């Protein structure tokens, strides 16, 4: 049946026409259209990539800022700590020094007191000795004014000596 038999005329014209259509459309339409499409897609892709990059950079920047802040905070913390340490050290040093000074003063005072005391005691001793000698002289002078009292003295002294 000729419905399903390719006819020469139409085959001939279809081959020629299709080839012409293919060549004309390729040059006039497909190249510019596909070129424009891929150019645009490339542009969009590039813009997206750039945006992604910018976002990444932004994140990096933020992270940097955060890190700097953190560092500053830590530094402040250490500085405060150091200051506190220095303060307490200074206080304790001053206390120690004062204590040492006080101790030294006390010790000096004590030594002075001791030496004063010794001097006083020795002076007292000598004074007491002089007084005793004076008293003894006066007493001896008084007692030796009569004979009986002299004898009594000698006796008591002798008794004492015997008792010793």
């Amino acid at each position: 049946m000729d419905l399903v038999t390719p006819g020469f005329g139409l085959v001939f014209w279809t081959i020629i026409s299709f080839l012409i259509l293919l060549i004309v459309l390729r040059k006039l339409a497909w190249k510019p259209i596909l070129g424009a499409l891929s150019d645009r897609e490339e542009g969009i892709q590039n813009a997206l990539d750039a945006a992604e990059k910018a976002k990444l950079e932004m994140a990096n920047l933020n992270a940097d800022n955060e890190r700097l802040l953190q560092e500053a905070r830590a530094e402040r913390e250490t500085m405060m700590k150091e200051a506190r340490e220095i303060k307490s050290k200074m206080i304790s040093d001053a206390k120690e020094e004062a204590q040492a000074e006080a101790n030294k003063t006390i010790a000096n005072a004590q030594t002075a007191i001791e030496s004063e005391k010794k001097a006083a005691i020795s002076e007292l001793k000598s004074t007491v000795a002089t007084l005793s000698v004076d008293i003894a002289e006066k007493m001896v002078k008084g007692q030796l004014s009569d004979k009986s009292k002299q004898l009594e003295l000698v006796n008591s002294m002798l008794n004492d000596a015997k008792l010793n």
Partner: protein
Amino acid sequence: MQITTLRHLVTILFLLFSITSFSAEKSDGKDEKFDAKKMIMHHVKDAYGMHIVTLNEGSPEEKHITLPLPIILWTDNGLTTFMSSEFHHDYNGEVIVEKNGGRFVNVHEKVYQLESGASSVQYDEEHHPTNAAKPLDISITRNVFMMWVSIAILILIFSAAARRYKKSTNNLPSGIASFVEPIVVFVRDEIARPMIGETKYKKYMPYLLTVFFFIWINNIFGLIPIFNGANLTGNISFTFVLALFTFIITNLSGNRNYWKHIFWMPGVPVPIKIFLIPIEIIGIFTKPISLMIRLFANITAGHIIILALMSLIFIFESVWVSPVSVFFSLFITLIEIVVTAIQAYIFTILSALYFGMATEEAHH
């Protein structure tokens, strides 16, 4: 809103022209009964003139409005050309045209050259002429004519779209380009890229796009009643040529891996390798043949269904059948509108698939 108006318009046009041309068919036979098969075949097959409308039918002033097209023949006496109007709308072999020393008749839209001495066509039992031979015929038939119209429209549409891109500074589509672009992108991203692969698809894009739009626009033209059944994509000559191009491109771009799969299938035992060779060789040809038959059969079948539904009115000779016929043929027409795009898509995607198979790299 606009689309519905358009659809109404198309429907009205369809009814108008279909019915008048069917009635014209009937009046041709005068006393004969209406022959649905003859009418349908006449509409589905190619013809020498673009018959547009018949006026005053049945009356003595009956007038056929037909666009005459050139008939080009290569005979023993060389190139012979004349206009199809010289047959005076006759396709029963009654009008004899004498040109360039030969006598020609039109028998069912095929030009025959009468043998010398014969004064009229003699037929055998199967109604084949016995005393006339077919010369080499490269006439501009209505299918060739409509093909050229479609080519002109395609070139207009797509060069206009391309100009829009050139005009815009940032490659943005505007005007007709924004209508064309999604379809072009569809062919690229849904057909070429997945079927052929990212690295090689670019080479085949011009062919795939051309085939897709060429088939689609001619499918649509086949449905427009004013073109009176210019059934180009439902003609096996046309689908044969497109399938032939796919066949040639597939086998020219076939790489080592493709031929290896045909002649020495890897990964199977030797007896099966030998067994597979003839099957694979047949496969080279069945692929394009299936393309050819699928498009031809789908489009022709759609036309035949619509025409057959319309013929019911004339077979039953009752106007009361017409609502049923009109409703069903409208329904089928709407389906056919979808089929125009689907068949173009299927032809293109299968071509792309074959190109993809031919260029696939070995991955075993």
